[in-house]
């Protein structure tokens, strides 16, 4: 027991000595953002609108949007809120691109 306590105290002294005096963002709690992440976030803010569709709303319209794109229509102008969400949401974007490819492969059989 005595040896364990001695080791614990020694370890605490070592850690206190080696810890940095200040964290990267001294006034802030974690999580903190890197400079590159801050820039990416500001880019997202530049595209942020008060009215944005949710993932569910976009999912409901994704097939309509994809067909307009497939027909060569200006879907982005006709359905700007869907286009905007696809630019902001990587999950929905991935599903949209997969849907387009699926439609491309099945077009002749439809």
């Amino acid at each position, binding site marked *: 027991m005595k040896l364990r306590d001695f080791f614990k105290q020694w370890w605490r002294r070592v850690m206190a000595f080696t810890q940095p005096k200040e964290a990267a963002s001294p006034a802030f709690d974690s999580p903190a953002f890197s400079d590159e992440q801050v820039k990416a976030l500001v880019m997202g803010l530049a595209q942020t609108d008060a009215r944005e569709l949710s993932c569910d709303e976009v999912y409901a319209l994704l097939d309509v949007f994809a067909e307009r794109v497939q027909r060569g229509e200006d879907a982005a102008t006709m359905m700007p809120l869907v286009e905007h969400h696809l630019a902001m949401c990587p999950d929905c974007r991935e599903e949209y691109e997969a849907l387009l490819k*699926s439609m491309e492969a099945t077009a002749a059989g439809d």
Partner: protein
Amino acid sequence: MLFSTQFDARGRGENILAMNRTDDEWIDELGGATPDGTLADLRGLLLRGLRFALASYRVTESDLEDFVQDGLLKILDNLTSYRREARFTTWAQKVCVRVALTELRRRRWRDVSLEDIIAQSEIADFTLAALTDQSPDPGEATVTKMMLATVQRLIHEELTERQRTALLAVMQGGMPLQEVAERMGMNRNALYKLLHDGRQRLKQRMGNEGLAPQELLAMFGQR
């Protein structure tokens, strides 16, 4: 090749002409007493589409068949939610793609926790702190660094802990919203709204401080 006839296990061809059902025919036959033939045709179509859509993903033929099978179940369970605003086959492919990608994301991120992702970020910040001159001399900071520090402060003041955590998980680790949401006890829809609320608040606060995102981006681009 797309116009060739493909044969299923019973030797019956997936006749391309038979695929040209109207939307009503699809719905009526799938909801009817003997949907087997229609189901087989739909299964063939979904499999063909998914195979091409997921060509760049690591999936086996067995995976594809499982995804299509799960997709078919979901389609049959939700036939009444088809709104006829797009073709039935497009709607069905949308359902199947969602099923497949949801499962693929789960597999890919199965062993990764939010703490893992956040810890990576903290390690990176620690390294940065260790290498940077920490003398508190404002004269040495560039305007860009000051702006970055200001935005950092605003992020801290305006976003909740949950919003910061979610943002970091998506930005730092590239974790899909679906996976972040599950670890935070919500669905993807709610997470998107949480993040949108955070972006809105931050944008408003920055506007109040006279910091327009476009101007900041122009400043960052001048480095």
